[in-house]
């Protein structure tokens, strides 16, 4: 299997091994699916959504988790870090120019000295 093998200098990696791995996974999935129950029918009570016993809302908007709520815990835990980071992106052009000038100055001090 020379084709698809990449030597990184420390080891190697083959893409077709992964492809075969995924193909194997797909086969297993198909096998599991084929062992499913035969009396399943679409359009009956069997494919109704179970919403904790409550009536299911008509519009999907009420069901979905909005994107701004994703990773809520993550952002909450890092909120101090995030506050600093977001406050740097002020949206004011003068601040961006100032950061540019600071960067030039810092890099020139590093390289010139």
């Amino acid at each position, binding site marked *: 299997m020379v084709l698809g093998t990449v030597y990184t200098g420390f080891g190697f990696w083959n893409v077709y091994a992964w492809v075969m791995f995924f193909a194997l996974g797909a086969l297993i999935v198909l096998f599991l699916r084929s062992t499913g129950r035969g009396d399943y029918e679409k359009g009956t009570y069997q494919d109704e959504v179970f919403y904790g016993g409550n009536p299911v809302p008509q519009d999907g908007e009420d069901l979905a988790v909005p994107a701004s709520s994703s990773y809520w815990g993550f952002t909450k835990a890092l909120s101090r870090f995030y506050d600093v980071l977001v406050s740097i992106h*002020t*949206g*004011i*052009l*003068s601040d961006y*120019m100032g950061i540019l000038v600071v960067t030039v100055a810092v890099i020139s001090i590093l390289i010139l000295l």
Partner: protein
Amino acid sequence: MINNIPMLTVGALFVIGLYGVLFKRNIIKIAIAVSIIESSTNLFLIVLGYRTGGSIPVYTLAGEFKKMVLPTPQALTLTAIVIGLATTALLLTLIMLLYKHYGTLDVHEIRRLRG
């Protein structure tokens, strides 16, 4: 020191321009400050090519001359001037549209995109 006055002018223009870009709040003044930096850059290129006592590098009816100033920086400056003109025109256009949309020229209030 007195011989270096053109160089000092370059530095002074650059300082004025950069100060304007950093600390002025009116966006038209910022555009003007960018133009001033442009002028300082152009002057810098011209100053690089000067030879003491040189004449302009054109032979038509040149008369007596000993040496000519370096022509390449002049050509570069011509190019840089036109480029500066193009960017200035575009900046002013954008400022017109910003004024239409935001109703202000204060750079601290034009900050809808942040975070």
